[in-house]
């Protein structure tokens, strides 16, 4: 009797477990595909508790329905004007049609390889259709380095895997190492050209400023000298007029005083003086000397 009870308990427990496979949970992050004997039947889209036929009639396959990112390795590509670039893209994608997804790539790992091929070949194709300065310029207002059509084209190709591509961007845009050198040389040359320009501008402005200052200074001095000469000559003219007016009053007296002054200035020089006593101013002063000397002789 007890043995029958134990067996019944075991069978009952197994039965319960088996029946529990009729229940399944899909959570907010997942989408499910119901299969019947391994064949996909339908998508279970709503999160929560669901029912199905017990195993092995129905099974549930769950997928992460959320957006995810695939970072790809850098690859080299040529632009339309034959410049080579190193492009490193990333892809943001999610599962749109779980049935198709299950039938084609079966998993995210399985999706990586075809996605990589599609993205790299499409980007290389796009690069070949545009010039270098459409990638790099200072005027475009676009959101990304790649043309906007790139995303649509890639997404269309990935549709057949039940995948929708939400974004494709370049995380890095670079140059092959050997091309970097020529960029560096150009950067150096540009900087040194501008440095020379600054230095020669400085030189030029300095020379101009100094020359201008020198000119202004010499003009100032020249004007002052002219002014000074004017002042002197005006004063002399006034004085000469005054002298003339005065001496005109008695030319004889003037002659006397003038001769004495002239003789004085000659004698002030000192030394030996040979003078012609008949000529003025000596004749004037000698007139008295004879008188002076006469008494003493």
């Amino acid at each position, binding site marked *: 009797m007890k043995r029958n009870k134990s067996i019944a308990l075991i069978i009952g427990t197994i039965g319960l477990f088996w029946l529990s496979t009729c229940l399944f949970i899909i959570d907010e992050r997942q989408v499910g595909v119901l299969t019947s004997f391994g064949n996909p039947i339908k998508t279970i889209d709503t999160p929560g508790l669901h029912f199905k036929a017990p195993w092995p009639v129905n099974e549930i396959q769950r997928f992460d329905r959320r957006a995810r990112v695939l970072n790809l390795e850098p690859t080299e590509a040529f632009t339309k004007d034959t410049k080579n670039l190193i492009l490193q893209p990333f892809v943001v994608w999610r599962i749109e049609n779980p049935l198709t997804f299950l039938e084609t790539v079966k998993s995210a790992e399985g999706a990586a390889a075809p996605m990589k091929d599609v993205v790299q070949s499409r980007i290389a194709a796009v690069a070949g259709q545009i010039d270098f300065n459409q990638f790099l310029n200072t005027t475009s207002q676009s959101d990304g380095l790649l043309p906007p059509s790139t995303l649509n084209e890639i997404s269309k190709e990935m549709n057949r895997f039940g995948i929708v591509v939400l974004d494709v*961007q370049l995380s890095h845009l670079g140059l092959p190492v050997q091309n970097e050198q020529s960029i560096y040389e150009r950067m150096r040359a540009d900087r040194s050209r501008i440095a020379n320009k*600054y230095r020669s501008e400085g030189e030029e402005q300095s020379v101009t400023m100094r020359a201008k200052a020198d000119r202004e200074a010499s003009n100032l001095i020249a004007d*002052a000298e002219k002014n000074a000469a004017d002042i002197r000559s005006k004063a002399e003219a006034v004085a000469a007029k005054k002298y003339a007016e005065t001496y005109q009053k008695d030319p004889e007296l003037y002659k006397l005083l003038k001769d004495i002054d002239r003789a004085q200035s000659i004698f002030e020089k000192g030394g030996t003086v040979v003078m012609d006593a008949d000529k003025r101013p000596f004749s004037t002063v000698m007139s*008295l000397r004879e008188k002076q000397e006469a008494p003493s002789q």
Partner: protein
Amino acid sequence: MSKALKVILILVPLWALSGLMVINTDEVGLIARFGALNRVESSGLRFRLPWPIEGDQRLQVTEVKTIELDKRLALTGDANLVEVQANVQYIIVNPIDYTTQSDAPNQLLRAISEGALSTKIGRVGVDPDSFINRSKLQQAIKSATQKKSDELKLGMRIEAVEIQELNAPSQVIDAFYDLSSARGDKETLILSAKTYRSKLMPDSRGKASSLVEKAKADAKKIQTDAIADTKRFEDLLETWKDEPQAVKDRAISAFWKKAAPSLNIMPVTKETEVYLESKP
């Protein structure tokens, strides 16, 4: 049987109370019922039904988190190469989106901010004077990243993008340093010319002014001399009119008194000339 009942009577309440939660002040709790999002609980002591009926997930929604992007080379819009390193700071503002729209939101944010960084640097030029406007670039990257984050429904708000390093690569940095010292050289040359000028002008003005002052002084002397001389003459004129010979004698003897002692005078007249000639 009663033993099993006792066990059940202990386990069931424990299981029922396993749904008690303490949610911290900087967190929220997302409660799902059979996997389906049911409600969001804020901080405090909260209750949910026990597993497998309900489950909870905690998220920090007030803390500002930082992603450090790797330092790398980037191409600018005018095909120069620069080294750049930036950090992105964000905060979770929509915990539901954050957990349900992307599988690794931080990883996704890193990718889209790298993308925004490459794009925005690829649209900016290097100015010879100011290199690159860092704050403008930060702002551009921040808005581009926020836009993408919103499109992809990451549930994040980008608080800031901070560019920690943005400079010319080490291979060309010396050329950039020389450029900056060339700017300095230009300034120095102009400044020394200005200094020259600012010294020269006052000096010259001083010189000019003293030339004029000297002329005025000379003019004054000429004037006073003229006045003195003419006065002397006019004073003498009175006496001269009365006694001309006396005045003449006085003047000449005054002259001799002054001039004679230091001189050796040899007056030569027509007679003495003959005399001199005939004397051996």
